[in-house]
């Protein structure tokens, strides 16, 4: 009997393709079900008021009593924007500068130390970031332990290593020949770094920054002992502030019906916000890349 190798190879190839496709489907199930669940339970509470009003007092419907106030998650949306904005303003300069140093001055001890430290910090559980900031402020500045400032600092602890690592990777993709081209033209090293290397890596740098922003926007743990949460809107950087993940954490485990449905609505809004940020930035980055490559 003649053994047909080519037929066996084809069969093997088809089987594996089907298996890989099935695995891809399985991987999509958790993602799809999370979005489905949030949409089903959070969807009905959405309204303009929901986005602007502050959370109500706790309440569960009782027969014969007036219905519970629905309220909204205005303070949480506002707080997340403030916290993440402030944390980004802190982390991006530090993380980018660290990455530039690690890549452009590699071989020096400090450069290696930066890469290694950023690697280790990326793996640190996010609650540790909260505890770290909490402890520091309890000892040195106890008045503002629970504040927008400490919340943003705790988020920065999460963001800095991510910005550093992703920017490092981005800068490393810039071919060495471009650095040489610039230096050989008599362009000083600092200018070469900022105006040639960083600019060339900008789409990837922005992607990295966005990654860290989305991670920070979804973190509750670092905020538990810092931003603390508040039903009120922004009260100054030295006072507690709300955030979407914090509201979800606090309200979802409460026994009150109106808070629980608020938590589901907040979950849906958080997913939508991150989705919008992701799509928008992808569009911007793609446009930048296209303009560069002249496509």
């Amino acid at each position, binding site marked *: 009997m003649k053994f047909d190798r080519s037929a066996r190879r084809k069969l093997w190839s088809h089987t594996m393709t089907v298996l890989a496709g099935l695995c891809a489907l399985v991987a999509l199930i958790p993602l799809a079900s999370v979005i489905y669940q949030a949409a089903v339970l959070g969807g009905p509470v959405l309204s303009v008021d929901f986005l602007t009003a502050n959370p109500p007092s706790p309440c569960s419907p009782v027969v014969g009593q007036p219905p519970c106030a629905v309220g909204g998650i205005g303070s949480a949306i506002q707080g997340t924007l403030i916290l993440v904005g402030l944390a980004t303003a802190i982390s991006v300069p530090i993380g980018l500068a660290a990455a530039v140093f690690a890549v452009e001055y590699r071989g020096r001890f400090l450069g290696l130390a930066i890469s290694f430290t950023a690697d280790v910090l990326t793996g640190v559980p996010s609650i540790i970031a909260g505890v770290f900031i909490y402890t520091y402020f309890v000892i040195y500045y106890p008045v503002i332990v629970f504040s927008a400032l400490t919340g943003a600092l705790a988020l920065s602890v999460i963001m800095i290593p991510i910005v550093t690592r992703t920017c490092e990777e981005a800068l490393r993709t810039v071919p060495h*020949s471009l650095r040489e081209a610039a230096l050989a033209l008599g362009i000083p090293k600092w200018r070469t770094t900022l105006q040639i290397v960083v600019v060339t890596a900008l789409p990837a740098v922005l992607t990295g920054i966005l990654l860290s922003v989305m991670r920070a926007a979804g973190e509750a743990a670092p905020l538990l002992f810092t931003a603390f949460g508040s039903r009120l809107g922004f009260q100054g950087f030295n006072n507690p502030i709300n955030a979407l993940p914090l509201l979800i954490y606090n309200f979802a485990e409460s026994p009150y019906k109106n808070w629980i449905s608020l938590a589901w609505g907040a979950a849906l809004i958080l997913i939508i916000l991150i989705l919008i940020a992701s799509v928008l930035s992808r569009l911007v980055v793609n446009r930048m890349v296209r303009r560069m490559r*002249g496509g």
Partner: protein
Amino acid sequence: MEGAKMQVEGLSAYYGKTKAISEISVGFPEGKVSAIIGPSGCGKSTLIRCLNRMHETLPRTRVEGRILLDGEDILQLDPVGVRRRVGMVFQKPNPFVTMSIFDNVSVALRFAGRHSRDEIDRAVVRSLQQAALWDEVKDRVDAPAVSLSGGQQQRLCIARALAAEPEVLLMDEPCSALDPVATAKIEVLVDELKSHYTVIIVTHNMQQAARVADYTAFLYLGKLIEVGPTESLFERPKERLTEQYITGRFG
């Protein structure tokens, strides 16, 4: 050497502990094309990269000796200033990918910040003309540099180096990534450039050295074996190694 624009004296260059070139002394005459030839790994790229102090941009490198530019030792000068006087074109075209054709050529002038918009415009046109690229790109100088073909990109890199008005132009195997047609264009160009610049070109292609260079230096294993007018070096080599190399017995 009399009338040398650049004079190398007892130059040794190291990568870590490895000595890539050893005790080289050679002059590069003003307004001429000098070629550096030799088999792979003989140190010809290292030598040319010393001439604008690019060698020392790599980690753990070191240079000994003297490199005189108009009688002044460039190893004692600020490397940024040296590189403005000694331009360089690399093996592979390396245009700045984020920039247009115009921005690539004008980058050195723009970053220097001492030039008016008018001066920059004129310098870009002049450099593109000198690099024989103007006619091909004059209608699209704002197009991305990466939209050009490989040969055009290399001429763009030549224009970019020329825009800074260097005194010496170093070319490190500028045709190694190009097809024969593009190579021919660059060779014609090199011949024209020597009326304004001192050109030093590294090539692994002996025919190319014979075609473009007034003087040729032959390097082998990091040492200078022979240097002289191109014709006499190719037709009447004084050293046996040179003869063996140019007749293709090794390399």
